[in-house]
């Protein structure tokens, strides 16, 4: 079997705050093969964006990261600063959420794209002009400043920027979150096309499971800093097993299933406070099917029905 583009093992990310250590990611294992898209879903605060930032060590220096992040076989967590800089963007780039201030407001779009390639020696297969055409923006936009672009255009510019150094892996961090549904569909389609044409791997982070049903080969659901269920994209949405995944899937209408549209169900309660996690399974206070064991035992991710690709972390499921 070929080396996966990304292999994360037992990743822990702990923020330091005035209230004490905040474990945002607690022992995550994920793997992405060449050309594969892994969807990572969960509520805000579950640690999915922290996970993405930790891959390239973009969290603040006081934040503790342990485990290993093998990017094309090399561990980014043990790299020297120079090595790390060389890997950033060249091997893995990030499509940030365009609605936030992720583009420098006083620099032209073209300049911000050029800058990425210049930082990596300047040589590349596709020029800035071509990249802008590729994402449907047009060359003239290179001279624009970020405030002159619409939300969808900014997102396209960010995609062009992410492609500047021909990376192996693209981390898409909520790339469609602040866009209206029409633009959302266009951006998803664009990402899908680019991924297929260039044979890229992708880590697609979102809180919107419905987005993943079409884009992701596999989906991992995160809760309180852990992956609690992994499976093939379509299976997971239609037939989720963990009570949290079920609730998450039920809160979005499924396209082609009118009954789900009529009764979207939310999930009661708030996500747990990472400083003060519940004992046992962190989901048990909000879980409808919790039993006594859940209060004391935190079940690890384990295979279901012998399938390698389907794992659940729940006492009710899996091969004991």
């Amino acid at each position, binding site marked *: 079997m070929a080396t996966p583009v990304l292999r994360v093992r037992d990743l822990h990310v702990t923020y330091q705050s005035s209230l004490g250590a905040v474990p945002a990611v607690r022992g995550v294992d994920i793997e992405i093969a060449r050309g594969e898209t892994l969807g990572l879903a969960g509520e805000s605060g579950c640690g999915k964006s922290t996970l993405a930032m930790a891959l390239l060590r*973009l969290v603040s220096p006081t934040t503790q990261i342990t485990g290993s992040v093998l990017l094309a076989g090399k561990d980014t967590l043990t790299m020297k600063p120079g090595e790390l800089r060389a890997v950033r*963007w060249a091997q893995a780039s990030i499509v940030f959420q365009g609605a936030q201030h*992720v583009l*420098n407001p*006083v620099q032209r779009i073209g300049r911000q794209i050029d800058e*990425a390639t210049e*930082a990596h020696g300047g040589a590349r297969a596709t020029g800035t002009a071509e990249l802008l055409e590729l994402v449907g923006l047009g060359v003239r936009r290179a001279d624009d400043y970020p405030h002159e672009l619409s939300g969808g255009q900014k997102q396209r510019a960010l995609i062009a920027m992410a492609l500047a150094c021909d990376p192996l892996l693209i981390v898409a961090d909520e790339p469609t979150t602040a866009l209206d549904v029409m633009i959302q569909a266009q951006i998803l389609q664009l990402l899908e096309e680019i991924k297929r044409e260039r044979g890229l791997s992708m880590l697609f982070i979102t809180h919107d499971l419905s987005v993943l049903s079409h884009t992701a080969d596999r989906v991992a659901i995160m809760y309180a800093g852990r992956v609690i269920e992994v499976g093939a994209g379509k299976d997971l949405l239609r037939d989720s097993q963990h009570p949290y995944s079920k609730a998450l899937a039920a809160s979005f209408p499924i396209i082609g299933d009118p009954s789900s549209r009529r009764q979207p169900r939310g999930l009661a309660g708030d996500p747990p406070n990472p400083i003060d996690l519940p004992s046992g399974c962190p989901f048990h206070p909000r879980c409808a099917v919790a039993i006594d064991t859940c209060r004391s035992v935190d079940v690890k991710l384990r295979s279901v029905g012998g399938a390698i690709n389907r794992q659940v972390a729940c006492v009710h499921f899996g091969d004991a």
Partner: protein
Amino acid sequence: MSRRYLIKKVIGAFLTLSAVVVFNFFLFRIVDRDPLAKYRGRSKLTIEQRETMIRRMGLEGSKWDQFTVYIKSVLRLDFGRSFDSTQPVLGEITARLPATLFLVGVSTLLTICVGLYIGTKAGWRRGSRFDRTSTSATMVLYSTPEFFFGMLLLAFIAGRTGWFPTGGLRDVGADYGFVGNLIDRMHHLVLPTVTLTLGYLGSYALIMRTSMIETLGEDYLVTARAKGLRDSEVMSRHAVPNALLPSVSLIAISFGFVIGGAITTETVFSYPGLGLATANAISNNDLPMLQALFLLASAAVILFNFIADLVYGLLDPRVRRTE
């Protein structure tokens, strides 16, 4: 930069200046209701002398008449004659202007360079030893009046060591040739420049530090790091250009105070510029001189705000195109 933006700013500056000119007329009529009073006690004026004085001071006729005479003479840059020297005010001012412009210009340039450098470095490495040391130091500088530095320098450097002259523009009565005279002037300029620079360094450094720290949390810095830029590149290309924006306008505002600061600094070092002229005019009740100096100081503040607007427009594309 768009022409509309420029025109808008020019009109704005012009309107402000007009308001100051009008305000100045009333201000000095409130400050001194009867400018002739001081001549009454000293000597008896004949009726003709008295009328000449009244005409010369622009106190003839109704307030409205006085106002139109005042506006006309301001437009002709005719500010009357100094009570003190009896010379035309305009000449007195233009004679002293270069000395002050040079002093304030050099020290402002120094303050901007050193202050912004310290502020940038302290803000970027917040909490570092450099930040802790420089912030304590700049706080002290910021809260100390500049004339106090002047007095310290005068007492300990000029007085004790004699390395620098204690005051004046140049050695009186000496001629060292062209180059020698130039060096002599520079020599006299050192302590006043250091005084003014120390006096204003603190505020510039603290402003830049705050605005740098505000920039640190911005998402585009994460983007820049993710792209594989060096820390120094992230700072100079992304953090500093954005952090400069709020500093530019604050510096322009504080520039108005530099002219005020020159009053005390020039007084301490007997440096014959506009600041010393202002101090003398105040103590001698020289109203025509004061009126013109006030107008000049206001015009300088307005001019620098205008320049700040232009620089802001150059630095921030959002201001440039959307307005």
